[in-house]
């Protein structure tokens, strides 16, 4: 036993005396080590943005995508262990297919959050299991309009107007809280999401990153679509202009 461990953190089936399950907390640490992922629920759609940190300059841009489609109206952004996330995407897709086979309809976002949450929770109650080292930002458009949820490694989930996970989650949340969600269009949310990812990025620790942007909105006919190059450029220009203005203020 190491100096800090007290024996309560070996299995997910053991509580510590003060009622914590350390393995779940460690899983959350895995999430905190990864690039920031955010989700915004705007008036007419949802926007996902991810700061995908490059491990090497040799990596090909556009690979290992961290925002993935589940159905055409539903997608998820993940932070944490990428291969865990991939498994969750696969699971979400099969849940969505299952729902479709039963009801001939697309799965509502809330149902998806519930099912995926319960699936992740199952890995937090058996001693032989390792919890998923992932937070999932789940969003889409259904009969209720735009929907956004975030599931953490414990399997619990909440609905959000804006949410963030990963390295820069504190900075990102502070920025998200300033947004006026009742007036925000999805198109504008893309710019804000871009700005927030850039401000949450820590240039001292991580140099290269790739911005992943996806939206599901009235403008995309409720479909999951990667934001076009032109719109990304526009959002980055908007971010740059704000940063320049800030620098002028500092001088």
């Amino acid at each position, binding site marked *: 036993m190491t100096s800090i461990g007290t024996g309560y953190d070996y299995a997910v089936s053991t509580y510590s005396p003060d009622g914590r399950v350390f393995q779940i907390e460690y899983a959350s640490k895995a999430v905190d080590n990864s690039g920031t992922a955010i989700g915004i629920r705007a008036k007419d759609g949802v926007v996902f943005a991810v700061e995908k940190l490059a491990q090497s300059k040799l990596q090909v841009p556009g690979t290992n*995508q961290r925002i993935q*489609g589940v*159905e*055409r109206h539903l997608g998820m952004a993940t932070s944490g262990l990428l291969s865990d996330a991939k498994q969750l995407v696969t699971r979400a897709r099969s849940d*969505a297919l299952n729902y*479709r086979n039963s009801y001939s309809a697309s799965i509502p976002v809330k149902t998806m959050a519930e099912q995926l949450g319960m699936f992740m929770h199952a890995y937090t109650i058996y001693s032989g299991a390792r919890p998923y080292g992932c937070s999932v930002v789940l969003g889409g458009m259904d009969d209720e309009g735009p929907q956004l949820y975030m599931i953490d490694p414990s399997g619990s989930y909440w609905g959000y107007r804006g949410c963030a996970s990963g390295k820069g989650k504190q900075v990102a949340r502070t920025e998200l809280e300033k947004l006026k969600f009742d007036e925000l269009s999805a198109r504008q949310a893309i710019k804000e999401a871009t700005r927030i990812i850039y401000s949450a990025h820590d240039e001292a620790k991580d140099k290269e990153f790739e911005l992943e942007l996806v939206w599901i909105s009235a403008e995309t006919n409720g479909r*999951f679509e990667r934001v076009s190059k032109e719109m990304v450029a526009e959002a980055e220009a908007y971010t740059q202009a704000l940063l320049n203005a800030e620098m002028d203020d500092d001088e």
Partner: protein
Amino acid sequence: MASIKLKLPQAAQNAQEPITHSDGPIVTGTSVLGIKYKDGIMVAADCLASYGSLARFRDVNRLQAFGERTIIGASGDIGDFQYVQDELEKLMIKDFCLADGHELATPHVYSYLHRLLYSRRSEMKPLWNSYVVGGVHSSSSQRFLGYVDLLGTTYQSSTIATGFGAHLAQPLLRKAVEGREDTLTEEEAVKILDDCMRVLFYRDARSLNRIRRAKVTKDGMEVTDPYSLETEWAFAEHIVGYGA
């Protein structure tokens, strides 16, 4: 034969008679027509779903778009068509999830439909439909028009007609379209299809004069709202016989 069957005990009947619950359609749609014209593909079908000879449902859509540039028209069993729609929807979602930048084009949908129908007929559980599959390729602008039926039979042609239309409309379509696929204008194509649908309405007792028409061009797809064809029945007074 029927009287002998009635005398047989249940068990003996089961032992001797083949299973027959897949041997016919129940609620049916009649002909679908499709042609190539200058700008792409045009298809038409009426809005009727018959229950035997009863005109049971009169606002049914038998033209279904898949993706941006593929249209499918179905005749035959409506329930089987709805199942096929679900299967194709799942195919499109599966393809979307791959996120490989590749788009299912008309020939892929056509091929999938062919394999689906052929495998089901080989299981002796045929999907009781004939399909017209049409589309225009997004980059090459190449036109595609094909036919698939419940036996898994396929062919491609510049004019296609299913069901009753294969007998009545196909000769008219061939005369109007063949050799002129690259010069027919949209207006001419609409007139050809409307005229053929009208002929079918006069002669096919399972048809309706309320129809939908769809066109696929390199710019995308348009499906019309249902509209009614003008008909002229004055000549009917002079028809004598036929039990009237």
